[in-house]
């Protein structure tokens, strides 16, 4: 284990020396930093509950993967965006497999969502996509990032979104990962004055997922929405680390993550909310709820509030439990099987999160996918 710490990146760099990648100034800067950074491990606070050995041991082969966008975008010639703080954001910058940029012009209101479907298939396949969005002042736009991972593969994505003054951005992330796929996704949102950004993370299946969602409120009167659900089963692992950073006064944030834990699955929720000294009149709400469907599932949940201003309204809460036995009996007494009754309760439970998405197509897609997998019963009437 010790030997893999600093040397892991070097190993990946060497074995991908001839792989097609973008490079550029940002990539070089990232490489030089990573040469001295330890590989994330459970001794680090940010990775306390997340085992990374199998990821570090992987002999990943960088490929461009199968990435489709609608509409189509030109690829950047070199790695775009900013370096980022986290280890894997920098790994992405150093060995970027494809980088797209899009700018929504000022005052444009675009109803049709921009979509990316990012597939990572095949043993040892390693895809490192990078998408950089700038939504200019007064614009409105929607984005969908649909990840599909299979086999023993690894997708390490970065999405950077800048939401300018008075702009409105809706983001849906769909994660549909099977087998021994590893996904790390870093989403960074920077918001200006009176802007609105809502990010909903739909983890349909999460073989091994680590999400870092970091939203920074830099302009007064802005709002950040964060929502996500996870329904891991078998041995699946889903980790959501979120940060909401209130830097200026009069901003609001609302965060809701819900989990349904089956079989031997494991999940982590760590939500940090910072309210800086100047950020008076902040309203920040955070909630994480988990339902345990099995005695063998594990959830580590850790809400964290750091408040340095004195005139704020903030709350956070975390609950973990089982379904109300009385409700289950009521449903069974009306003819629903124990399984069907639980499905109906899970449907209602998860629906609260799915419905936070403002993209009707995504909402319908997600409900249909979950109902086909027998997790929920989709509304039919």
């Amino acid at each position, binding site marked *: 284990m010790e030997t893999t710490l600093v040397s892991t990146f070097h190993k990946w760099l060497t074995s991908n020396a001839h792989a097609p990648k973008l490079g550029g100034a940002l990539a070089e800067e990232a490489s030089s930093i990573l040469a001295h950074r330890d590989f994330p491990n459970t001794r680090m606070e940010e990775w306390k509950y997340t085992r990374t050995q199998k990821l570090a041991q992987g002999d990943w082969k960088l490929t461009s993967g199968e990435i489709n966008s609608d509409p189509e975008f030109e690829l950047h010639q070199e790695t775009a965006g900013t370096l980022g703080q986290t280890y894997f954001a920098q790994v992405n910058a150093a060995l970027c497999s494809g980088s797209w940029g899009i700018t929504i012009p000022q005052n444009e209101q675009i109803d049709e969502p921009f979509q990316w479907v990012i597939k990572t298939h095949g043993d040892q396949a390693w895809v490192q996509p990078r998408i950089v969005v700038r939504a200019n002042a007064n614009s409105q736009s929607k984005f969908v990032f649909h990840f599909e991972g299979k086999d023993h593969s690894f997708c390490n994505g970065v999405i950077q979104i800048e939401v300018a003054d008075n702009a409105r951005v809706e983001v849906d992330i769909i994660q549909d990962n099977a087998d021994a796929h590893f996904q790390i996704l870093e989403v960074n949102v920077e918001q200006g004055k009176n802007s609105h950004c809502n990010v909903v993370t739909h983890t349909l299946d999460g073989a091994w997922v680590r999400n870092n969602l970091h939203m920074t409120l830099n302009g007064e009167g802005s709002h950040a929405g964060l929502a996500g659900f996870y329904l891991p089963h078998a041995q699946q692992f889903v980790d959501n680390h979120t940060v909401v950073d209130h830097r200026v006064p009069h901003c609001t944030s609302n965060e809701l993550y819900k989990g349904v834990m089956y079989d031997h699955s494991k999940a982590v929720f760590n939500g940090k909310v910072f309210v800086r000294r100047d950020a008076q009149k902040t309203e920040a709400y955070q909630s994480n709820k988990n339902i345990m469907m099995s005695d063998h599932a594990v959830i580590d949940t850790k809400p964290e509030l750091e408040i340095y201003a004195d005139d704020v309204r903030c709350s956070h809460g975390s609950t973990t439990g089982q379904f*109300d036995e*009385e*409700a289950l*009996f*009521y*449903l*069974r*007494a*009306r*003819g*629903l*099987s*124990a399984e*069907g*009754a639980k499905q*109906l*309760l899970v*449907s*209602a*439970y998860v*629906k*609260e999160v799915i419905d936070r998405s403002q993209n009707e197509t995504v909402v319908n897609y997600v409900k249909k996918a979950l109902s086909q997998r027998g997790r929920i*019963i989709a*509304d*039919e*009437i």
Partner: protein
Amino acid sequence: MIEIKNLQASIGEKQILKGLNLTVKPGEVHAIMGPNGSGKSTLASVLAGREDYEVTGGEVMFNGKNLLELAPEERSREGLFLAFQYPVEIPGVSNMNFLKAAVGEMRKHRGLDPLSAKDFLALVKERSALVELDGQLAHRAVNEGFSGGEKKRNEVFQMAMLEPKLAILDETDSGLDIDALRIVAQGVNAMRSPERSFLVITHYQRLLDYIVPDVVHVLYKGQIVKTGPKELALELEEKGYDWIKETVA
């Protein structure tokens, strides 16, 4: 319809039903009255399959099947319906989705094709009218934010949707004002038929003015201690349960 022989049941260490015998034939309405703590709700819960109770003896045959061996959902599909004394609020689960699932299970069990969305909605409209249930309630979450009267009407509405062979009404009159009582009874009466039986569990005679029983039983200390025609309810109302206690003692 249902034949209960020497039924004994307990919760924890406490024995509540102590050898209960009762037979209900198709089309009959039986009332079960009794003082608080006599075992009325326990009987309803044991018949519906609530797992908190342990059956320690006796047998229950329901249309030729050993009821006590069936899971709660199997009992329901076989045609047993329990109208809860305290209907459960289930936030987020729409009444319609729930009913569609319940009706679907019932029809599947009876070998019937699933109802089309159109036929289902028509049935909802027809049956909710029986209990004057506002159409909007059907679209809300199960019992969430319903008044006491609305919850009980929703129970009878569900009964009407599921068309059971035997309906057990567990103190359906509790917490109802006189208008709600009349509406609930009207719904029940509309569902009376020569094939359908009812077991009306109540503390008061009042409900039986509206749902007129064929037979009245008095339950006391876990046993049926007196059985008579509908006039027995009136006699009980007049003389009070102390009369029974003295008679039995």
